[in-house]
């Protein structure tokens, strides 16, 4: 297929769109808003995930060692812990350090001193990124640490991690469903717009068909119209999300400060933005493909 025929069709499509600026703008804006909603929600979920990542020190696991654990056992254990998935840091707390910490926190120096001997075990404090793996895998991992030689017991509270992951999974699925529905909506909006264009250009289509235009020739400008409008709508949706993130940035930072942390909202990165534009162009193309299939092909029967 010759390039100049495609260029001709693309020019034709652009001309048609530019000749009706208001109608084109309305279609594109409607599509952009329809797309911005699920994309914005995806961005919100991303931010939530990032925020929860900040709290990963809460996924802290203490492995208490036997009083008689050997130096080799301790070394092997440390190496194992550092190799494991999702482990952010491993800290060894010796018996003396544990005692100092305990005294410092509890202020029970006198009580400890009456025992005469340091009763506290040495331990490893492991910080985990709770989102690095599934809750069940995490449970299994922690349980396996508990079985290691030299380990007396493992203490962890991973239930909140499971809950958190469940909530995130639910949110993601809900957004996917919404995105699917809105994608269908976008296709229908575009289909209807192209249907109008087709009926406006019925004469042209009929005459072209009389002088021997192929189906592909007649379809192409309409498909390009859908493609172009979809792509522009994707760009506008990207801009809408970017503006929303910018507007919310200040308040979110102040809120984070009140909680004593720092948090920076994330928009779409350029890769995600390009995927949005491409997906949107594809939706526009699909919409016009639908209209063309329903309203054009009978010309040739």
């Amino acid at each position, binding site marked *: 297929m*010759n390039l*100049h*025929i495609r260029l*001709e069709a693309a020019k034709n499509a652009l001309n048609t769109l530019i000749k009706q600026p208001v109608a084109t703008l309305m279609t594109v804006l409607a599509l952009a808003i329809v797309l911005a909603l699920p994309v914005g929600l995806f961005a919100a979920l991303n931010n939530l995930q990032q925020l929860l990542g900040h709290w990963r020190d809460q996924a802290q696991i203490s492995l208490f060692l036997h009083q008689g654990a050997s130096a080799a056992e301790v070394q092997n254990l440390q190496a194992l812990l550092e190799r494991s998935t999702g482990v952010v840091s491993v800290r060894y707390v010796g018996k003396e350090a544990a005692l100092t910490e305990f005294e410092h926190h509890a202020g029970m120096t006198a009580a400890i001193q009456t025992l005469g001997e340091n009763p506290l075990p040495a331990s490893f404090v492991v910080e985990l990124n709770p989102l690095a793996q599934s809750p069940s895998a995490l449970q299994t991992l922690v349980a396996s640490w508990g079985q290691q030689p030299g380990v007396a017991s493992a203490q962890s509270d991973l239930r909140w991690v499971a809950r958190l992951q469940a909530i995130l999974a639910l949110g993601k699925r809900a957004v996917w469903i919404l995105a699917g529905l809105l994608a269908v909506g976008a296709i229908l909006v575009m289909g209807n717009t192209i249907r109008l264009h087709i009926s406006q250009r019925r*004469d*042209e289509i*009929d*005459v*072209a*068909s*009389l*002088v*021997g*235009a*192929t*189906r592909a*020739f007649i379809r192409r400008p309409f498909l390009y119209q859908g493609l172009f409008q979809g792509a522009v709508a994707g760009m506008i949706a990207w801009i809408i999300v970017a503006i929303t993130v910018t507007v919310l940035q200040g308040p979110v930072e102040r809120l984070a400060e009140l909680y004593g942390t720092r948090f920076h909202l994330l928009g779409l990165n350029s890769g995600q933005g390009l995927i949005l534009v491409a997906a949107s162009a594809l939706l526009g193309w699909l919409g016009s493909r639908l209209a063309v299939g329903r309203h054009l092909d009978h010309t*040739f*029967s």
Partner: protein
Amino acid sequence: MIEFINVTKHYPGRHHVLREVNLHLHKGEMALLTGPSGAGKSTLLKLLLRLEDVSRGTLMVNGIDVSTLGRRHIPAYRRRIGVVFQDHKLLMDRDVFSNVALTLQVGGLTGRQIQSRVRAALEKVGLGDRAQDLPAVLSGGEQQRVGIARAIVHTPEILLADEPTGNLDNSLSTEILDLFRDFHHHGATVLVATHDQSQVNRLGLPVFHLEQGRLHTPEEDKA
């Protein structure tokens, strides 16, 4: 070469519009198609363009069996034909140039080829200086000539016309039909439906006469 062999056509739910039509028009010949209103002239031309399907019989055009031609091959077949309609079927929102260029764009020609060929076709029909005008500002005869330019710009092997002079006065009709004859002299096969008896007499060309769907060939008339 146009060859109708026992061609019958009926529209859905109607009695036959064409019955057992046999018509032979050799390559490079020009003939007229006459008959009263409703006789089936337009239908016969529509069969030739494959705008309608043959109900029974065989229709051959330059070696192609049009009656069984697959849908996919119809556009390429139509591009070998030029057609002029009584109601000219011009696009009123496009200038004369674009109207004529459509035939070539559909054929996949490039901008420069289109430029020179459209100019030449417009010169041929005497509208060389009207390329930028919209059809609405042209007279009826001029509009019809734009339609002719559109039909001949790709130098088709076959030229069909359905009452091209229907609502034109006599001198304009003469002018238009002479254009067709000119094109025929350059080697095209030409078939023109008309009920303009004075032109039929003047041109002295072979005449196919349709009456209630039956065709009377020139040979029969002579016999």
